[in-house]
């Protein structure tokens, strides 16, 4: 999204000297940095990156000052600095994802997806047992949470777009404020309301309540955005045909925004699928399949990762990485689904 208007200079052909100078400076600097890193006190990748960064600041400004294409030194500095921010961010991202894929794929076996952990003790070989119970638990709790939060989220969005009453700014403000509720607070709340009061035990249902609190603001805000895109003409036309407002919404507005509402649901799912803290307080964890969301602790992928990692033995940590890999793949699927559906919605 480059907003800045380009200055076109069609009369100037691409100058080979300029290009050569740029290539030499921008590609040569890392080598010079490597040379300095090896021959001085700096060490390792971090040392190289730091040297490269400062060296490039100097070389780029020198190029701007004395190269064939003159430009302000501050321009060169800005470009190096913002590129450095991008590179630093990308390096961090790669270092986050790399071990998940590397260790996850290395230890992943297909039967992990279906077997539960009832036969595995501490440090059992990865040939036995798996995380199927956690995968199913995640799907169940997140599915239930979607079931709770999607209707309420859409209602909140419909209030803003259809009723347009005096409360509109307040509704939006509180939805916004709710999106800042820390996940652990949602867990504490669900625990206090349903478990501490003795209504239910640790269970998938309580976990779903906690998750739907976190999901609701995302769903409501996205739904509001897509309902706003439904043209007012459609609403007026439906009303002019003699429809009641309820019918106009049900038969015209909602169908028109259908795939956008699917996007809202998917974004909500993406928001909560990796939540750990509230699940530790409400779902707790289990070693076996638990198909009943109303009774008994249930395992989920994030709590499984948490507990396996804290066990700390070699094979248990490997199991944690496998689960992290499966979770990340799940997040990736949800994320790409959201992209596909929302791009379709924008085209329609």
């Amino acid at each position: 999204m480059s907003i800045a208007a380009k200055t076109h200079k069609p009369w100037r052909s691409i100058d080979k000297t300029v290009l050569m100078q740029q290539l030499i400076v921008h590609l040569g600097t890392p080598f010079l940095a490597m040379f300095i890193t090896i021959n001085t006190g700096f060490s390792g990748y971090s040392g190289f990156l730091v040297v490269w960064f400062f060296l490039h600041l100097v070389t780029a400004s020198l190029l701007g000052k004395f190269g064939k294409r003159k430009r302000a030194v501050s321009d060169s500095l800005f470009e190096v600095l913002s590129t450095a921010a991008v590179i630093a961010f990308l390096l961090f991202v790669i270092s986050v994802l790399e071990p998940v894929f590397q260790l996850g794929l290395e230890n992943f076996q297909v039967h992990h997806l279906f077997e539960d952990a009832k036969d595995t003790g501490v440090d059992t070989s990865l040939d036995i047992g798996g995380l199927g119970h956690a995968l199913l638990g995640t799907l169940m709790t997140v599915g239930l949470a979607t079931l709770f939060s999607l209707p309420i989220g859409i209602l909140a969005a419909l209030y803003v777009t259809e009723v347009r009453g005096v409360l509109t700014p307040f509704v939006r403000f509180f939805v916004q404020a709710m999106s800042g509720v820390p996940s652990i607070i949602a867990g504490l709340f669900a625990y206090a309301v349903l478990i501490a009061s003795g209504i239910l035990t640790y269970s998938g249902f309580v976990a779903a309540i906690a998750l739907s609190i976190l999901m609701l603001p995302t769903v409501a805000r996205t739904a509001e955005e897509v309902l706003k895109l439904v043209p007012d003409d459609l609403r007026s036309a439906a009303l002019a045909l003699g429809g009641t407002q309820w019918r106009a919404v049900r038969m015209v507005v909602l169908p028109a925004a259908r795939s956008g509402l699917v996007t809202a649901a998917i974004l909500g799912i993406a928001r909560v699928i990796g939540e750990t803290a509230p699940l530790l307080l409400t779902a707790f964890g289990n070693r076996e399949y638990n198909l009943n969301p109303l009774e008994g602790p249930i395992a989920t992928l994030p709590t499984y990762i948490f507990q396996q990692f804290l066990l700390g033995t070699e094979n248990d940590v490997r199991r944690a990485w496998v689960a992290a890999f499966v979770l990340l793949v799940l997040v990736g699927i949800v994320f790409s689904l959201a992209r596909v559906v929302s791009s379709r919605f924008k085209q329609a």
Partner: protein
Amino acid sequence: MITTQEPKVSEPREIVVTRRFSDKAFRSILILGGLFAFIALSGIFGYLFITSLPVLQYAGISFFTDSFWFMGDNLLPNQGSIDSPQLGIFAMLWGSILISSLALLIAVPISVGLALAITHFFPKFLSRSLTFVVDLVAAVPSIIFGLWGAYTLAPHAQLWAKWLNTNLSETFPIFAVDFQYFGQSPFMAGIVLAIMIIPIITSVAREIYGSVPRDLITGAQALGASRWTMIKNVVIPFGASGVVGGAMLGLGRALGETVAVFFVLNLVTGDVNWFNILESEGGSVASFIISRFGEASPLEVQALFGAGLALFVLTLVTNALATLIVNKARRRR
């Protein structure tokens, strides 16, 4: 016979909307749905407050200003306690604020750099893919950042911390430590949180920077401004309040982060680590709750709800301020 007829002028009528019953019902259901967020928020506050009330009454204001976590015999004096608990979460509150501010300090410059690169520097295809990566990172679960912090970052960050300590601790006392062990420090937690909030700040900043009116940009260029001069004098002032709001949204997220911090921070309840960010002791209310909850007695659970209340209020205020600032910035454009 000619009769003149008065021309009929119809009176302007008042338009009255009488809604049918079905519409009235529909609209009231929508109002209920709209108010749900408010109901949920007050419900959360109410439950946290009521559950923690006995402990708050016992400990009073010192619950938020003292640094103790001693459960004694798990009874309150009015329940016949001989060894009364002493409760205060100030070290945790301060720790939360310290690591979150540290995270902001790291994240804001990187986010601004990213957002400027996306909106005003990179060619279109690079900008698009970078935006995609930023959005993707926003969806990565926090527990994976926790694993990353404990497994990948910790060995490196210990080296960086050691370097900072040996070379800079005399000029900057914040790098001083009592013990030469650099693991599980606020510094490390700050880095992990920074990576987690960069996508949030970047997406707000990108949106604001991308909406700078074209007239202003071309105007600056027509006056002969170079790219940086234009950005410094037009883009950055225009987006300032948006970036501040985005940073506060990130701050709210960082304050409430639980498991990622739990993996990389050594929680010490009895002693406030004011500014020694490399010292292996710190605090975080959210991680503290999760670390104690599993083995807590009923009284301790009540006390943890008190801690939750403090966290809830803190994040709510931060987020409300952030929302106001961001909305103001959006409206101005």
